[in-house]
C-alpha cells in the first residue's frame, strides 16, 4: 500500500460512502422524487472526492471538476423534475414500481 494521508483516505471513504448511500436510496425508495434526490446524493460523493484530491495535490483541477459536477447535478434535477411533473399526469409517481409498461 502506498501511504496516503489520513485526511485524504477519510475523505475518499466518505465520498464512496455518500455514493453508496445514494445508490441504496435509489434502490429502496419508491417515490420518483426521492429517487431523484438519491441521485443528487450519489453525485455529491465524487464531488467531495474531487475537492479532497485537489486539496491533497494542490491542484485547482479538482475544484474545476467540482463545479462541473454541480452543473450536472443542477441540470439533472431540472430535467428530472420536468419529467416528474409530466409523468405525474400519466402514472402514479409515488410508486415507481408501477411505471413498468416497458418490460421483458
Amino acid at each position: 500500500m502506498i501511504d496516503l494521508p489520513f485526511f485524504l483516505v477519510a475523505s475518499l471513504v466518505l465520498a464512496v460512502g455518500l455514493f453508496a448511500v445514494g445508490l441504496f436510496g435509489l434502490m429502496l425508495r419508491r417515490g420518483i422524487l426521492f429517487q431523484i434526490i438519491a441521485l443528487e446524493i450519489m453525485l455529491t460523493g465524487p464531488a467531495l472526492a474531487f475537492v479532497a484530491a485537489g486539496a491533497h495535490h494542490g491542484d485547482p483541477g479538482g475544484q474545476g471538476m467540482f463545479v462541473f459536477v454541480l452543473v450536472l447535478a443542477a441540470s439533472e434535477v431540472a430535467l428530472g423534475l420536468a419529467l416528474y411533473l409530466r409523468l405525474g399526469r400519466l402514472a402514479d409517481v409515488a410508486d415507481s414500481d408501477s411505471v413498468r409498461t416497458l418490460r421483458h
Partner: protein
Amino acid sequence: MSLSPFLALLLVPMPAMGAFLLLGLGPAHLERRAVQTVGMLGAVAPMAVMLPLGAYCLAGVCDGVQPIFDLTVGDAVVALALKLDPLSALVGVTVTAIGACVITYSVDYMAKAEVPDQRRYFALMNLFLASMLCMVLAGDSIVLFLGWELMGLCSFFLIAYHVTSARAIAAGRKAFLITRVADALLLAGLLLLFLEAGSVRLDALIPAGIATDEVRRGLIAALLLGGALGKSAQIPFHTWLPSAMAGPTPVSALLHSATMVAAGAFLLARFAPFLQAAPLVMAATAVFGAATALFGAVSAVFQKDIKRLLAYSSISQIGFMLLAIGLGAPEVAIAHFVVHAIFKSLLFLSAGDMTQMARGTTDISAMRGALWARPLAYLAFVAGAASLAGIPVITAGWFSKEAILAAAWLAGPFGVLLWLVAMAAAVMTAVYAFRPVFVGLTRIDRPRPTVGGLFTNVPVVALAIATFAVAPLVEPMVAFLGGVPPHPPRAVELLGAAAPFLGMVMAAALTFVPRLSMRVSRARRLRSGIRIDGIYQVTFVQPFVGLVRWLTGQKGGIADPVGTLPILGAERLTAAVVRPFAHDPLDRGWSRFSAGLVRGWAAGRRLQTGRARDYALALAFGLALILLIAWGTTWR
C-alpha cells in the same frame, strides 16, 4: 504462297461439298428440278476438275502436295494436305467418273420420290462423293480419316434411306457399327503411326512406320489391315454388305460396290510400302483376300436376289484386290479397283434399270425376259457380266484378274496355293455372273421393248463402253502406278482364260436344268453367308443386349447398379448410424433443447422487470462485482 497447279486439288471435293451444304443444311426451299440440277452439278463438276489434273499427271508432273493448314499440338505439327501422285490421280479420276455416272443416273431413278427425300438423297450422295475424294486425295492421315469416317456416316444414312422400313434402318445400323469397329482399328493404327512420326503427312508416316521396331510395326500394320477388312466387308466383317443392299440401287452402285467398299484396298495400297515391311501381315492380307474371294464367289452363286448377288460379288472381287496387295502387287490391285469400279457400277445400274420395271422387287426371277423388255439395259448388263467373269482379251476384267492370278502364281509355293483358291473363285465368278444373264433370256412371251430416259442411258452406255475400252489400258495403268505387269507361263495364262468359260457352262446348267436350279434355291445355309451373322448375334449382340438389359434393370435388378452404389451405401450408413438415434435420444434431445431454450427465454426475459429500482439493483450488483474483482487484485 505461289500458285501451284496442285491448288486445283482443293477444288476437287468442293462442288460436291457445296451441293451437300446447299441441299442438306441450306434452309431455302428448292423445287424438284433445282434439287436435281444442284445434285447432278455437284457430282459432275469434280470430274471436270479431276480429269485435267489426271492429264497433268500423265504428262509427267505427278508428285505434288497442296498444304491446307498446319496445327501445332505441343511439339507435333499436324500438317493437313492434299496429295497428287499416280495412285491418287488414278483413283481420283475413277471415283469422280463413277460418281458422275451414278448420280446422273439417279436423276431418273429417283424421279418419283418426294422432293424432301430426293433432296436428302442428293445431299448425302454429294457428301459421300466429297468425303471419298478427300480420302483419296488425302496427303495426311487426318484428312484421310475424315473422308473415311464421313463415308461411313453417309453409308449409314443412305442405307437407311427408306426411313419407314425397319429392315433398312437395321441394315444401316449394322453396317455402321461393323465399319465403325474397323474405323476404330484404323484410327488406332493411324494415331500410333502419328506418335512414331510426330507428323501426319503420309510421306513421313510410312518411313517412320518402317523404322520402328518389329512388334510395333506388325501391330500397326495389323490395325491398318483390320480397318481395311472392315470397310471392305472382308471376312470376318463381310456380313454388313449384303444387308446394306436395302438402300436404293444407285447407292449400292456407288458406295457399296464401286468406291467406298473398295476403299480398304485403296488404303492398303496407300500404305503398301509400310505393309511390305511387315511380312506376316502381308501374308495375312493375301490369305484373307483369297479366302474372301472364294467365299464371296461361292455365296454369290446361291443368291436369289440380284443385289445380294452383286454384293457378294463385290466382297469376292475386293478379296482379289487384297490378295494382290498381300502378294506385293498393289499396283495390280488398284488396276483391278478401277476395272471393278467400272463394271460393278455398270452391273448395278443396268440391273437397277431392269428390276425397276419389275416394281421394286430385286429377285433374280424378276429379270426373266429382260432381253426383250429392256434390251439396252440387258446388253449393258451382259457387258458388265462378261468383264466380271473375265472373258479373255476383250474385257478389261480379264486383264486385271489375270494379272492378279499371275502375281499369285509367281509368288512361290505359298502363292501357288493361293492361285488355286483364286482360280476356283474365278470359276465361281463366271457362274454367278452369267446366271442372271441366262435368266434374262428365259421368257417366252415377248413384251414391247422399252428404253429408259436420257439420264439412265447415257451413264449406262458410257460405262458399258468403258468396260471394253479400258481393256488395253490395264497394263499401262499398272506401269503408271510404278509396277511391273506380271506375266506367268503361257499355260497358266490359258488355264485362267478357260475359267470363265467353264463357269459359263456351269451357270447355264444351273439356270436351265430345273433339278439343279431347285438345289440352288434350297441352299439356304450357303445363301446366308455361312451364318456368320448368327455367330455375331450370339457372341456379341446378345451378350451386349443382356448387359444393357441388366444394367438398366430390365432384368429385374437395380437400374444403373454402379450409380446406385453410393445411394445404397448412404442408406446403409443411415440405417447403421443415424436411425438408432433418429427417434430416440438425439432427436428428442434436440427438441427438448429447443423447447428448453424457449422456456429459458421466457424465464430469462423476466429479468427485465421494467422496474427502475431493479435496474438500479442490477447496476449496483455489477458495480459491486467489478469493485470486488478490483479489490481482489490488490491482494498480493
